């Protein structure tokens, strides 16, 4: 892995983001509006449900950035004619994408923080976080786990110009299955099993654990188990995306799809 390429991906994504205002809408404004609508719906309710709403918005913001923005960058490269020069360099596409994902995760984090602050200040949600430091730590972990899932889905963009088809298919199911919208326990049992293999589900569980006093965690495990599972699952997702990406990189050279867009 080339650290310089990761940094290059990060920097290029940052400049691209800052100089191109169109990104602000999907990555900052939409999740924010979503949270406001949720809060409006739940305006008479207090306690964990409000937390669920704010959490939902925050996670959506992070997810939108880690999945949508990161994977779309490759579609952009294909359209823009920069995919081929990138491929032509000795660097792995994985490294560049990782750098870009890190930038997008950073924007996702800003987004989540913004949502929590506004929810608190304007709506006075009175989110009394039981353990604010722990909560922030879990937020970062969740973000990391979302990025790992995003990386795997991004490989589809490298593979085909139909990538957005895949990311659209996966974006909302994963959002729901992770327990960001409604608690996982409210999902049908068969779907809950899928949740357990998604690292963000454990992250969100851990976030709730540190926010709500006496929270009964998913599967009744301790928060340390949550953390361990997040780390293991995220590492697995990252490894899988590394392997799939290497295969895909070779594959597009043989099927000749690198230059079509």
């Amino acid at each position, binding site marked *: 892995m*080339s650290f*310089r*390429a990761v*940094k*290059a991906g990060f*920097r*290029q994504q940052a*400049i*691209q983001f800052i*100089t*191109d205002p169109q990104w602000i809408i999907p990555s900052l404004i939409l999740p924010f509006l979503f949270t406001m609508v949720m809060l409006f719906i739940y305006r008479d309710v207090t306690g964990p449900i409000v937390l669920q709403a704010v959490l939902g918005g925050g996670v959506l913001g992070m997810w939108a950035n880690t999945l949508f923005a990161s994977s779309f960058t490759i579609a952009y490269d294909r359209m*823009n*004619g*920069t995919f*081929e*020069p*990138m*491929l*032509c*360099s*000795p*660097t792995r596409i994985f490294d*560049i994408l990782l750098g870009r994902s890190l930038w997008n995760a950073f924007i996702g984090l800003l987004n989540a923080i913004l949502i929590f602050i506004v929810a608190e200040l304007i709506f006075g949600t009175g989110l009394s976080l039981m353990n604010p430091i722990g909560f922030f730590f879990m937020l970062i972990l969740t973000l990391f786990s979302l990025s790992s899932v995003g990386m795997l889905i991004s490989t589809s963009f490298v593979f085909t110009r139909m990538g957005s088809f895949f990311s659209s298919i996966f974006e909302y199911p994963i959002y729901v299955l992770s327990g960001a919208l409604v608690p996982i326990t409210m999902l049908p049992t068969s779907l809950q099993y899928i949740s357990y293999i998604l690292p963000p589900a454990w992250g969100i569980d851990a976030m709730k654990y540190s926010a709500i006093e006496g929270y009964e965690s998913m599967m009744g495990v301790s928060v340390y188990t949550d953390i361990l599972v997040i780390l293991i699952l995220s590492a697995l997702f990252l490894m899988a995306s590394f392997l799939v990406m290497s295969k895909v990189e*070779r594959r597009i*050279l*043989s099927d*000749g799809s*690198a*230059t079509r867009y």
Partner: protein
Amino acid sequence: MDDSDYAIVVENLTRTFSSHHNGNPKKVAVDGISFTVKKGEIYGILGPNGAGKTTTIKMLSTLLIPTSGKATILGLDVTDEKNVRTLRNRINVVSGGERGLYYRLSGRQNLEFFADLYNIPKKKQKKLIDDLLELVELTDAADIKTENYSRGMKQRIHIAHALINDPEILYLDEPTIGLDPEISKEIRSLIRKLSDGGKTIILTTHYMFEAEELCNHMIIMSGGKIVGKGNVTDIKNSISNSSSIRVVTEREPVFAIESIRTQMNADSKVTKLLNGRFVTKFTIPIEYNDLSMYENIFRQYNIKNIGVEEITLEDAYLALVGDGEE
């Protein structure tokens, strides 16, 4: 010749594409081509649209895996996955055109991004990029976003980008397409300069004069096959091994015609012009096209003009490509 004198050795290289959309399942884009490129040469690939030029360049630059056949680049087999990264460090490609740049980034930022992808240390980048910008004469525009660049500036930044890893082989796919004559000329002299600096250059073009001006050797492709190969003279000769001489004289060259017939076994055609002069045309084998010899033979008739009526590269190209297409 030693193997190491060759930058590129291509043997029976073939690439097919499966096109599920239209009726025929397989399209043969490149069909069993073979050629060699010596180190330091400028090698041309000519041919009409769809001939397979770009497909060939992609295979030789590791961006497309051949369906069959062999290509050895700098002694390394391109089809071997192990060689891909090594090769990418030692070659580069200019695909050019309007695309291929991050428009929101300046020329310098674009170059920095690619310098990072070639793992060039930050310390070295500054000087390298300044030098490249100077080489392509973009120093003043370095910090302007590339979305504001003209077509010519974009092409020049593409070339700077392709030089970032100081490649031993540089592939240029239609480097002057869509550029005005003046900028095209600048790009050609830049290509010449790079070649003088020792780089091996593979160039595709639709312009005969460009190939004639730059290329030491070339292939002409049509329908995925090679229909002509060699230096400019070889290509011209491949359609005809003769050249024709045209002499304008004040008086009718009776004896000259006779001596050409007896010495070269060539028939002449003489026409009288309205101004009273005579035009004599005859075709001789290419090895006898030494004009001084004919100046001697025609001297006594007072020569007004003498020259070889050249078969142009374009004549040869059109004839070869026409044959290839059937």
